[in-house]
């Protein structure tokens, strides 16, 4: 059970149970839907983007604890940041969850998102952790409205 608690940390369980920003923000002007066909997870991310800054962000959908918690934590992490900063955070987060489990976790630049580092041990679950992020990027890019993680 101790190993599992490394994956399912208290913060993750908490955000799964009570997702933050689980709503459609007022005045949202960007949105995209992400879908993981493997497990049926579906998430829609909404953004109010003003002058290149994520003024507000929220999400809807349903998924596993990892994808729900990751989406919830993501909304908290990106709010108030520029698109460029969000991209930088995504890169750092992606590096965190796909890095070699043998190596020390590099938490620099990811802040609270570090609680998701446990998915490194479960390669098939990485897609769960990154689904909301890919969806956010699609929303910010304003192009494709449906992204898939498979």
């Amino acid at each position, binding site marked *: 059970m101790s190993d*599992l608690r490394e994956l*399912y940390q208290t913060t993750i369980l908490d955000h799964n149970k009570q997702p933050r920003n689980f709503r459609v923000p007022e005045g949202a002007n960007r949105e995209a839907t992400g879908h993981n066909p493997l497990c*049926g997870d*579906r998430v829609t991310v909404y953004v109010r983007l003003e002058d290149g800054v994520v003024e507000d962000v929220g999400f809807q959908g349903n998924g596993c604890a990892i994808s729900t918690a990751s989406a919830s934590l993501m909304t908290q992490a990106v709010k108030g940041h520029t698109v460029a900063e969000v991209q930088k955070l995504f890169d750092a987060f992606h590096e965190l969850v796909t890095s070699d489990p043998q190596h020390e976790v590099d938490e620099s630049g990811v802040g609270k998102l570090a609680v998701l580092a446990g998915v490194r041990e479960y390669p098939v679950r990485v897609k769960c952790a990154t689904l909301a992020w890919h969806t956010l990027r699609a929303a910010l890019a304003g192009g494709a409205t449906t992204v898939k993680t498979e």
Partner: protein
Amino acid sequence: MSFDIAAVRKQFPILARTQRGKPLAYLDTAATAQKPRAVIDAVSDFYANRYASIHRGVYELSESATLLYEGAREKLRAFLGAREAREIVFVRNATEAINLVAWSWGRRNVGAGDEVIVTTMEHHANIVPWQMLCEERGARLRVLPIRDDGELELEALPGLFTERTRIVAVTHVSNVLGTINPVREIAALAHARGVPVLVDGAQAAPRIPVDVRELGCDFYAVSGHKLYGPSGIGALYARAELLEAMPPWQGGGSMIESVSFDKTTYAGVPTRFEAGSPNAEGAVGLGAALDWLGQIGMQRIAQHERELLDYGTRLLDEIPGVRIYGRAGAKTGVLSFTIAGVHAHDVGTVLDGEGIAIRAGHHCAQPLMERYGVAATARASLGVYNDRDDLERLAQALRKAVELFR
């Protein structure tokens, strides 16, 4: 009558290994079955001592390899209760068997305005080929619904037939619900209207005795890897009369009688449907698997799994929040379930951490998931090598999952 489960388990080398540091409890046999030593040895022996081109060489080694390949066909004939070995076509898997029928028989017999009947509980393998055929031919799918308990609404079937019905495609056993469908009754209803029946036997053949003549079906599809044999080999049983009338669906070597740039004539059955060099080692391994299953006996395997299913059902029913999908009276060893407040993938990961292998997801049966209004379920499925201990560990780990996500 029971059998010596400890002796059976010893024949599966993989059961000695661990997963995430815990002894492996393999409960994913509906996805693919583990391999007994007899199969591993047969494939290895074929490579080491008997390997050569099939149906081509004029030398002894090739002749004996061909005999082994054709011997496997005969074993499948006997296993499925077919009349003649030529009614068995080797393919990659049950999916390819169904595609063969859709593209060979279907193109010739399904036209604009015609109808194909399938059921709500079909695996994508028995939906998508028909959908593709219907799209190409301008035909349409009609769907026989199921009841909440996971049984077909058989009484709705007569009303689905029209004069445009060309084929009924139904699974023998549901890969999600475990339901054993009344194929004999379905075939009788269809034949009374002159409509042939294809049965997806991927899940049934490894679990219950199958006799295609007793079932009265026209086509029966199986996968070798689910029958404790190698991957990449499967078979289609087709009634000789139908097979004889079917055109080839893939062209190439082996399937011809003679080739010239003006005209090519095709070989007889089943060779006409086996273009290119076949998966001979797969066929030989599958033959060994059928021998091995025959030694235990399908009736005993069915009984073993049924007893375990009942035990597992009792254990899961005692866990708060667990809901089992599929309560058919006639059911094989499949336990699909959800836990309130815990996503199926999280269930799968918690179990993984305990050394327990299950499937979590839509099980290639999205219309069925939609029928029950769930995105995914967890599925524990039984095989010949499972025992009560596997199920007790499953139940214990599920209680941990409930606790963790409380």
